[in-house]
């Protein structure tokens, strides 16, 4: 099982013995302030939203530093913060393994994807994938995988919001949580509807700054309590937990041959999934040049790397100062480590701040996912496939805005329905689907001259289908103690993450489809894509003339 990102899944049903920490009123006030400030910024940012490029790509007006911060904001979901701190606090070293996978994954984006993608696309991932292949089938496939990844990611965030809120605001019952999910959904619809990509980006920048500085302050605080000596902190954590094994791997994944294999599968999905997440890819279009895209990734790597180093200290800090028994006993269980640590350090004010930041985090991530899904539907399916390009950009943006409302409502409904469901399942599926369905086609079309339409279609549908099928047949869905469907057992596949099978399969299908196809692609298009991707010709703002 995957502990992180299961933000408060089990909260709704175990809040009877709630030991309220902090003041819900204070939490609501701080969160309300965040919403008010960001709404004003979104309104100001929306004044210039005129064209499709403004709405989807913020007029390509952001600098690398701003976009890199926004990427960090997009990437560091509440699950990263609450989930990893909690995982380290309880499982020690095994929690740390996640941060490493999440960080190293960015090198794939930096070296192989970001700049080339910025130079060849316009608004969506499908722009790049269909550049030199047959528009219709490839665009439809890319849009479907985009929507699938976004939807699972969205559902997880919305369901997580319900659980988090019960911890932070003291709302216990199912109705109250549904109400909160609705409020989150409506707020998110407003941000995206009014602000477009520009507003969404600003929300993410603010949130990233708050989250990273909050984590930094807590890290310095924890280290100060241990003479700024990491070894002393580890010693304190070992002493509180009474288990020296928390500083070495194996507590969670070393149990059996299956759990070890599962860990390898997860590691593969994490390192290859990041550079294929549509909402991360879309961020590269908000900057004017490939050089700024590179700068964005560099900023993101530094910020995300620093943040995961903080979580290492915070996790062991929670383990030392609070102890796993108190963490597991609190509402929210493993995910309450970070809020409890904040309360231990700075009382209800710091708890309120950290809680509001965690909640803001969900809001910002949800907004980023929604605009990606809406852009993909309006740009790839409506404008390019249904209307075959015969649509003016205004009409396309109108469709995108309507799609935002539909997706918002769907995710509210899904979030309410998924309350108490296994959130980890949904996020792992999103990463595995991204790595299996998108990454092979992205890499092949950027680097393999002979790659063709049949290869792309086989790889995308094969990757998507096998990832979803394997998850449906895994113990996450049935046959285990914590499965989604209790009382049935059709778990033919023993691992909870499908990556180790579906990712190589998708790469293989891309190769097989290409080799078996007898229709060659236009060599002109391949030449154009290669020249554009490396030189950035035609993709740069003509300011350096």
């Amino acid at each position, binding site marked *: 099982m995957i502990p992180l990102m299961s933000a408060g899944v089990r909260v709704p049903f175990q809040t009877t013995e709630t030991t309220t920490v902090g003041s819900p009123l204070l939490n609501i006030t701080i969160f309300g302030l965040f919403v008010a400030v960001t709404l004003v910024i979104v309104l100001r940012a929306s004044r210039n939203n005129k064209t499709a490029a403004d709405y989807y790509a913020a007029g390509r007006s952001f600098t690398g530093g701003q976009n890199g911060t926004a990427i960090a904001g997009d990437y560091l979901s509440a699950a990263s913060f609450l989930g990893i701190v909690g995982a380290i606090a309880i499982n020690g070293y095994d929690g*740390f393994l996640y941060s490493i996978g999440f960080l190293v994954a*960015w090198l794939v984006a930096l070296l192989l994807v970001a700049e080339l993608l910025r130079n060849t696309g316009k608004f969506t991932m499908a722009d790049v994938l269909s550049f030199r292949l047959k528009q219709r089938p490839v665009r439809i496939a890319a849009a479907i995988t985009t929507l699938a990844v976004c939807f699972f990611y969205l559902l997880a965030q919305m369901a997580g919001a319900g659980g988090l809120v019960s911890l932070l605001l003291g709302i216990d019952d199912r109705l109250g949580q549904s109400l909160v999910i609705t409020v989150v959904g409506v707020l998110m619809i407003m941000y995206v509807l009014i602000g477009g990509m520009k507003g969404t980006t600003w929300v993410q920048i603010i949130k990233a700054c708050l989250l990273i500085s909050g984590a930094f302050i807590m890290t310095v605080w924890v280290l100060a309590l241990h003479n700024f*000596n990491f070894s002393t902190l580890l010693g304190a954590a070992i002493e509180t937990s009474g288990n020296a094994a928390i500083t070495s791997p194996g507590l969670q994944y070393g149990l059996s041959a299956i759990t070890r294999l599962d860990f390898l599968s997860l590691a593969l999905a994490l390192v290859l999934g990041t550079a294929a997440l549509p909402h991360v890819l879309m961020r590269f279009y908000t900057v004017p040049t490939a050089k700024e895209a590179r700068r964005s990734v560099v900023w993101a790597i530094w910020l995300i790397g620093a943040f995961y180093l903080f979580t290492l200290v915070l996790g062991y800090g929670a383990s030392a100062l609070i102890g796993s028994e108190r963490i597991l006993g609190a509402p929210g269980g493993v995910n309450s480590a970070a809020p409890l640590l904040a309360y231990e350090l700075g009382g209800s004010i710091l708890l309120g701040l950290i809680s509001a930041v965690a909640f803001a985090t969900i809001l910002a991530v949800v907004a980023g996912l929604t605009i990606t899904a809406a852009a993909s539907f309006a740009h790839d399916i409506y404008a390019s496939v249904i209307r075959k390009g015969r649509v003016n950009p205004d009409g396309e943006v109108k469709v995108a805005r309507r799609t935002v409302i539909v997706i918002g409502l769907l995710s509210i409904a899904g979030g309410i329905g998924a309350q108490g469901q296994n959130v980890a399942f949904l996020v792992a599926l999103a990463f595995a689907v991204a790595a299996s369905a998108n990454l092979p086609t992205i890499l092949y079309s950027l680097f393999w001259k002979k790659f063709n339409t049949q290869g792309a279609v086989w790889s995308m549908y094969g990757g998507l289908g096998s990832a979803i099928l394997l998850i449906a047949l895994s113990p996450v869905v049935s046959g285990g103690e914590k499965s989604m469907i209790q009382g049935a057992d059709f778990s033919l596949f023993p691992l909870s993450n499908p990556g180790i099978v579906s990712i190589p399969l998708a790469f293989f299908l891309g190769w097989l489809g290409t080799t078996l196809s007898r229709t060659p692609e236009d060599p002109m298009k391949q030449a154009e894509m290669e020249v554009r991707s490396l030189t950035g010709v035609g993709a740069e*703002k003509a300011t350096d003339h």
Partner: protein
Amino acid sequence: MGSHPGEPAAGSGPAVDFTEVQQTEQFRELRKRHRSFVFPMAVFFLLWYFAYVLLAAYAIDFMATPVFGNINIGIILGLLQFVSTFAITMWYVSYANRRLDPIAANLRHELEEAAPEAFIDPSGGKK
């Protein structure tokens, strides 16, 4: 505002013969420099990452070997993953600035001067 800089100039006709550009000495040099850096580097960091993952999954006792105080080999290798990620990032940026950007900018300017109508969005009003 309002320009679409990233828009592929589809439909603008074959104003530029990209296959010809693809064959030029300059472009081939650019592609060679790019690939000769990113491919070996990608292979290297993936091997290093999976070596680490395999150790964490199957060599738990080795990872638990104390080095100093409560710091063990596992913690040091984990932190080295951070260090190598930061180092590769800086290395690539410096490489790209020195070896890729000048040649890419040069090619871009040549192409845009040869066929401005194919690359500059009329609505952008630039140039």
